[in-house]
């Protein structure tokens, strides 16, 4: 039996670094090994483990769309040892990546439906992948609404893409910042995400809602969607339990009998309701 080393990452070159917001960067990564690049594919919602060699690995979603080939992107916030080391890297530096891991958003099941994306803070990256995936398959879906909130105008990520979505007639984009986070000339909304969603009042019929954000935002947004009449089967979210292996072995992400790294990170609210609230 010739088992391979499942923990060994691919080497990736940082092709491009984008400063998104204070302490938030996007890396565009390209495989050093052409054969690995050729063999690689992923689906929206999946994540990977990114190495800063010498410091360790961090878990980020793959923030680019699987329809965009030849590279992957991740967007991360400086939070600790590994992310600080990654943030110090320059274009041309080499990092590690293993993945893709986890399950996916079942977008083919949403054909003919309306989509409502709700993202808070640094949690736009996982939704950005599925947003671009859906926009690249635009005629599969009916109305597409994106609600995105951040603490302040400065904290908004993907500022250029927000402009692009804003300009598209086939996307309804609502951007909001927390009270006090606005600047003179701000044309978006001011307010927290849950009440903004409630005021927007999206119709639940034939609609799928995707919610990603900090635990508190998710906790307060889910009841709003429930009140608006979204059934738990139509609400999707992703969990961010701490992970080490990404392969269902190290036990770190275990919640109930679920391994978030294998059975997740994408869950419907109906599935979450059957798990202990340890996320």
């Amino acid at each position, binding site marked *: *039996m010739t*088992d*391979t*080393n*499942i*923990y*060994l*990452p691919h*080497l990736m070159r940082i092709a491009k670094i984008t400063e998104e917001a204070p302490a938030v960067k996007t890396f565009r990564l390209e495989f050093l090994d052409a054969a690995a690049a050729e063999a690689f594919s992923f689906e929206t919602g999946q994540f990977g483990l990114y190495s800063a*060699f*010498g*410091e*360790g*690995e961090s878990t980020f979603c793959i923030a680019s769309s699987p329809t965009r080939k030849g590279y992957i992107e991740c967007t991360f916030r400086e*939070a*600790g040892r590994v*992310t600080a080391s990654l943030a110090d890297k320059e274009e*041309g*530096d*080499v990092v*590690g990546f293993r993945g893709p891991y986890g399950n996916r958003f079942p977008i083919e099941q949403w054909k003919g439906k309306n989509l409502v994306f709700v993202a808070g803070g640094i949690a736009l990256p996982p939704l950005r992948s599925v947003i671009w995936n859906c926009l690249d398959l635009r005629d599969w879906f009916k109305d597409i609404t994106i609600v995105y909130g951040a603490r302040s105008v400065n904290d908004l990520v993907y500022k250029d893409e927000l402009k692009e979505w804003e300009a598209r007639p086939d996307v309804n984009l609502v951007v909001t910042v927390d009270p006090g986070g606005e600047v003179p000339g701000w044309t978006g909304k001011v307010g927290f995400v849950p009440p903004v969603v409630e005021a927007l009042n999206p119709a639940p019929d034939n609609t799928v809602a995707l919610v990603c954000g*900090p*635990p508190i935002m998710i906790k307060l947004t889910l009841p709003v969607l429930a009140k608006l009449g979204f059934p738990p089967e139509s609400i999707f979210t992703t969990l*961010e*339990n*701490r992970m*080490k*292996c990404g*392969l*269902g*072995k*190290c*036990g*770190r992400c*275990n*919640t*109930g*009998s679920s391994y978030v790294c*294998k059975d997740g990170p994408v869950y419907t609210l109906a599935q979450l309701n059957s798990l*202990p609230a*340890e*996320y």
Partner: protein
Amino acid sequence: MAETFFLPQASLDALFAALAKDGRRILAPTDRDGRTELNPVASFQEVAADYIQTILSAKEAAFPKVERLMTFTLGAKAVDLKDAEPHAEPTVLFGVRPCEASGFGALDAVFNWDTRDRFFNARMEALAIIGVGCTKKDDACFCTSVGGGPGSTRGSDILLTPVEGGFLAEVLTPKGRAMVALAPGAFQPDPGLEKKVVEVPVAFDQPGLTRRLKDRFEDGIWMEQSLRCVGCGACAYVCPTCVCFDIVEEADAKGGHRLRTWDSCGGPMFTLHASGHNPRETQAQRWRQRVYHKFSYYPERYDMLGCVGCGKCTRACPVDMNLQEHLAEAAQA
């Protein structure tokens, strides 16, 4: 059906010599510095004469405390990454108890569902187990409550049971037969020996416990039971089935290694998010996770228990958490 033999005590050195000649290391319980632990031995005289169990578990033979996963050298805009070959020395585990021998099955369930863990598998392939059935027990033992027993053959390649003048040897697997073939003179025909082991009373109804846990998650007993737990993790480190691990870096500016080390769900850092949010904030939640992982999630996920009833956790706990008593309490209405 297992083939049975009589293995006279006087033949054990011949068996050990044959195993050594075949290039195998023999790990057996020895008494050193007042502790009974597994150590390399050359002769049967070195094996502890009188022990119930080692303090640490035998899992280390297949899942070491620290294991190198890869090595890297750092250059300017370059990384040289080298795969680590598993260091799998041919090894015979002699004298492990039936509970521990069966514990490898619980590790295998995790390491090999879905993807396969090369490091564990290489070590398991190089490992043969000569278990020894129990003629003594202590208050911490509860193997019979979790589907095992002091004479259980599960997990052993050969199971020895002490009899007058030596051992009854049950040869159970191809690996066991290969060991017999190395020292054919050591194994004599079985004159019809009686297999007699210690009696371990059943302490609680395990299927009942597993059912009961389904609706006991929000119960106050997890808080009550864990009030004195200090979260040291000793229970996990001595446990033959605890498999949770960490992946850490040992490196300087020039390069280093990525290692895997034992970990425990009993500490607050295990689940702490970088944001400060912690899904299992209290020791009660972490104690509950330990019990549920072994007695609810393992059965659901792998159709087996994540505990073999060895009692090592109970013996090692500095504040006398008694797993068997806690489980018996949790099994009750």
